[in-house]
């Protein structure tokens, strides 16, 4: 049944429209959803494996262990760029964090100087939610831009005149992913700026 005769109702209720969603609310919802996706996939896999027989699980465990060994050895032989060197932003971040308790969003160090971003509204922050992002030219051993922030906070940096806004997230398995306005980046994902790479890592409290 279609509702072509319902126009008077639509006119009467047409003003029942929400204002546009803020970018902040939308980004936060997306970031939390992607983190939940990681958790959900892990739970789904583990619950699926619960249904298997013990014998099958044993076989799979040995096969997986063997495969993991092969992959680990292969990866160790592959040439790969190390994380770019930094000049110790961690301790600085710790000091600034102490100056702005629950108000610090991020600290960004680039050729333009040090930028400290704080929030007007205090938000509880946790040491185990810290994330370090290093933006460097491919092949370079030093980072052009260093960022320390918290999981779920949006940060923007300027790269060659273009703004790159992103929200880093801690994943359920202890890794980091970065969500931009147009894509989701992993450790080796290509950036929208050719010739650059983004290294992302969680910062434990003791890393400061």
């Amino acid at each position, binding site marked *: *049944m279609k509702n072509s005769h319902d126009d008077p109702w*639509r006119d009467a209720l047409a003003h029942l429209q929400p204002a546009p969603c803020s970018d902040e609310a939308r980004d936060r919802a997306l970031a939390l959803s992607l983190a939940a996706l990681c958790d959900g*996939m892990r739970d789904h896999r583990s619950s699926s494996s619960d249904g298997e027989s013990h014998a099958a699980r044993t076989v799979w465990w040995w096969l997986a262990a063997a495969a993991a060994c092969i992959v680990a050895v292969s990866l160790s032989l592959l040439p790969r760029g190390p994380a770019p060197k930094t000049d110790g932003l961690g301790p600085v971040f710790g000091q600034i964090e102490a100056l702005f308790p629950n108000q610090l969003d991020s600290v960004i160090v680039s050729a333009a100087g040090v930028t400290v971003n704080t929030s007007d509204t205090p938000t509880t922050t946790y040491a185990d939610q810290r994330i370090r992002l290093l933006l460097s030219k491919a092949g370079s051993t030093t980072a052009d831009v260093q960022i320390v922030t918290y999981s779920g906070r949006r940060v923007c940096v300027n790269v060659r005149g273009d703004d790159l806004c992103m929200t880093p997230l801690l994943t359920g398995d202890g890794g980091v992913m970065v969500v931009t306005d147009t*894509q*989701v980046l992993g450790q080796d994902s290509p950036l929208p700026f050719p010739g650059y790479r983004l290294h992302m890592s969680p910062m434990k409290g003791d890393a400061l």
Partner: protein
Amino acid sequence: MPPNDDAPSDASLVQHALDGEAAAFATLFGRYHGAIRQFAYRVVLDEHAADDVAQESFITAARRLGSLRDGQAFAAWLYRIAANAARTHLRSSRAHERKLAAAVAGCADDGETPPPDERAARALAAMDGLPAKQREAVALVLLDDLSHAEAARRLGCAESTVSWRIFCAKRTLRRKLIP
């Protein structure tokens, strides 16, 4: 918003998301976040609550994506999650009542055509007079122009149930909206 012909189907995006591609889920998010937030607003009648309900809906969908058997049914499944999240919010929150009381208090009743914000307040107050399940049906059938069958699919009930809810809702709304 449903995909156009060139865009990947919901089923394809769901499968890619299940294969670990977060970008596929981000595409589904971009495709449906606005519609789900609007649906939530028309049920909970508060913008901040609608943000919360939409966020909660996508978090739940992401967490339970592995249990979705038919990826093509993603939209209907997501709407059912949103409807449940909105009902849970209404049960647990009284905040919307304060906002609506203010909206109703500011509603003109002098017989003249009210300005747009007052018409919005009148529509808000009229919707507030409906039970949540009737609001859901009104949002999908009268405002989004879905068929009763499609609305029933998204709300997880029988088509006749949607028809009955619309009938009851119109009876209530007529008194408050139609001169």
